[in-house]
């Protein structure tokens, strides 16, 4: 079995355990920030401590508002993780559906889906997202998710479609069809499981990219807004002060990089494990 082989391969990789551990901590921080942070978001801030560096009792120092930076950075985890995972899951569902339908039926449906993909693929990410987000100034985390899904489903859809086309002419599909399997059964029981592995890998890499993209929009000031807490927002504030107060930049950047890096590394090792040609 491919899955068991892959697991055997994964188990022996240090990188896998490293990135899995980082992601586990990040997930825990996102789900239960209270376990890690001393204070709640924007709680017990003291303006007199504004921008003070790391000191006793404040491991990461203080932010612009004089809040404990460690607590703030921990609370920032949730926005990144939720957006990254939610966007990828929705985009994955869209790409599975469109890729299966387009690749399997071909013809007019496929042409329509492919051109639609081209249209959305052509919209520049930062500018497109900025236009939409400025049009709806009161957006929260779910509106951000929607925008990122809208701009981010194309790559996986193209890949999925290509995979389906490659798999649908294989002998086992023909055999199942001769046994009288319906289109839906063929698509979901026979083609999907054999076509999805590379798409899953890209999805894992995609989580990292979405998190970086969300942080970029926050950083530009068009994403989440105060009083939300996110790494991108912290970096947005840090840009003005970081020459004299580098801790404002370093800590959220560190957390952001570690999270994105772990998703990318995880995607990489899973790809290596699934693709025996690269061994």
């Amino acid at each position, binding site marked *: 079995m491919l899955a068991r082989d892959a697991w055997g391969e994964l188990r022996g990789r240090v990188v896998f355990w490293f990135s899995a551990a980082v992601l586990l901590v990040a997930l825990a921080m996102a789900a239960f920030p209270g376990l890690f942070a001393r204070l709640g978001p924007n709680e017990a801030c003291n303006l007199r401590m504004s921008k003070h560096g790391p000191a006793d009792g404040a491991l990461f120092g203080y932010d612009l508002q004089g809040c404990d930076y460690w607590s703030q950075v921990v609370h920032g985890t949730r926005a990144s993780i939720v957006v990254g995972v939610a966007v990828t899951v929705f985009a994955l569902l869209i790409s599975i559906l469109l890729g299966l339908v387009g690749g399997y039926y071909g013809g007019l449906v496929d042409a329509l889906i492919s*051109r639609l993909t*081209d*249209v*959305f693929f*052509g*919209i*520049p*990410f*930062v*500018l*497109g997202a*900025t*236009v*939409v987000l*400025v*049009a709806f100034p009161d957006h929260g985390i779910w509106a951000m998710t929607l925008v990122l899904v809208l701009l981010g489903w194309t790559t996986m859809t193209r890949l999925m479609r290509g995979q389906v086309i490659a798999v649908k002419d294989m002998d086992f599909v023909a055999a199942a069809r001769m046994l009288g399997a319906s289109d839906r059964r063929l698509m979901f029981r026979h083609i999907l499981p054999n076509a999805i592995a590379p798409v899953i890998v890209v999805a894992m890499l995609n989580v*990292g990219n979405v998190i*970086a993209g969300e*942080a*970029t929009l926050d*950083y*530009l000031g*068009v994403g989440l807004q105060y009083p939300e807490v996110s790494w991108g927002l912290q*970096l947005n504030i840090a*840009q003005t002060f*970081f*020459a004299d107060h580098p801790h404002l*930049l370093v800590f959220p*950047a560190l957390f*952001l*990089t570690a999270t*994105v*890096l772990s998703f*990318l*590394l995880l995607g*990489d090792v899973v790809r290596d494990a699934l693709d025996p*040609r*690269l061994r």
Partner: protein
Amino acid sequence: MRYAAQRLAQAVPVFFATTFLIYAMVFALPGDPILALAGDKPVPEQVLAVMRARYHLDEPLLVQYGHYMLGVFRGDLGETFTGQPVSELLQDRWAVTAQLALTAWIFELVVGIGLGVLAGLRRGGAADTAVLAGTTFVIAVPVFVVGYTAQIVLGLNLGLFPTAGTDEGWPGSYLLPGMVLGSFGLAYVARLTRTSLVENLRADYVRTATAKGLSRRRVVGLHALRNSLIPVVTYLGVDFGNLMAGAVVTEGIFNLPGIGQQVFQSIQLQEGPVVVGVVTLLVMIFILANLAVDLLYGVLDPRIRRARA
């Protein structure tokens, strides 16, 4: 040739659909531009009507879009709500962004492919490990963090590059921003080149070439590399458009007066015409670059050329 025509025929509707989508999105922004022009003063009904008619604001969106595209093909990007022609506003800015994107692109091309080949030829060696680790790291660090760090360390502390602005012209002022902008793509290019080269070096035709007694240099340079570069060329083609569009952040950090900064300001000021103008041209560049890549395939790979004929 037939293939080229077919690809062009596909690209045209995509171009119109994408630009219309952008157009609709931008002009769906809340607020009435004519009322905004007048500030706090009340505007008489007749003036409103005349102004709306002049800017085609009283017609359906699709007709407005038609008027706009006709203008674009005559080189007229419309004017801002204060009456300044958009093309004039963008003229100098395009040059800045194009120079920046080109610097980044050359950096990706040369250093990216170079590192990829270095790593691919010695798979599993020290250079390979270093390139893999380094590129993964570069991909993971957000571009604005790379930008600020480079600006402070290389520009301010070490004084190797100018920290901001375009005073030194090209290439001086564009080297550091170009490297920052291109760092992400460089990492991708290096990894793509490596993977692709590793796969091709194991192919039968490489073994044949070696068995024929060709020198290693010729086998790698002429046979393996040419085949390996196909996915890399695809990426580089698509990425040029991305670099132009993604320059917003880099231009902001290094204070380069390019289109990215302009369009970002315009979005926030709800200057629809500028936004639509820039994005329309960007989409055009993007689609043309994709088309060029498709046509380049045939040159690089005879198999594709024959399959099409």
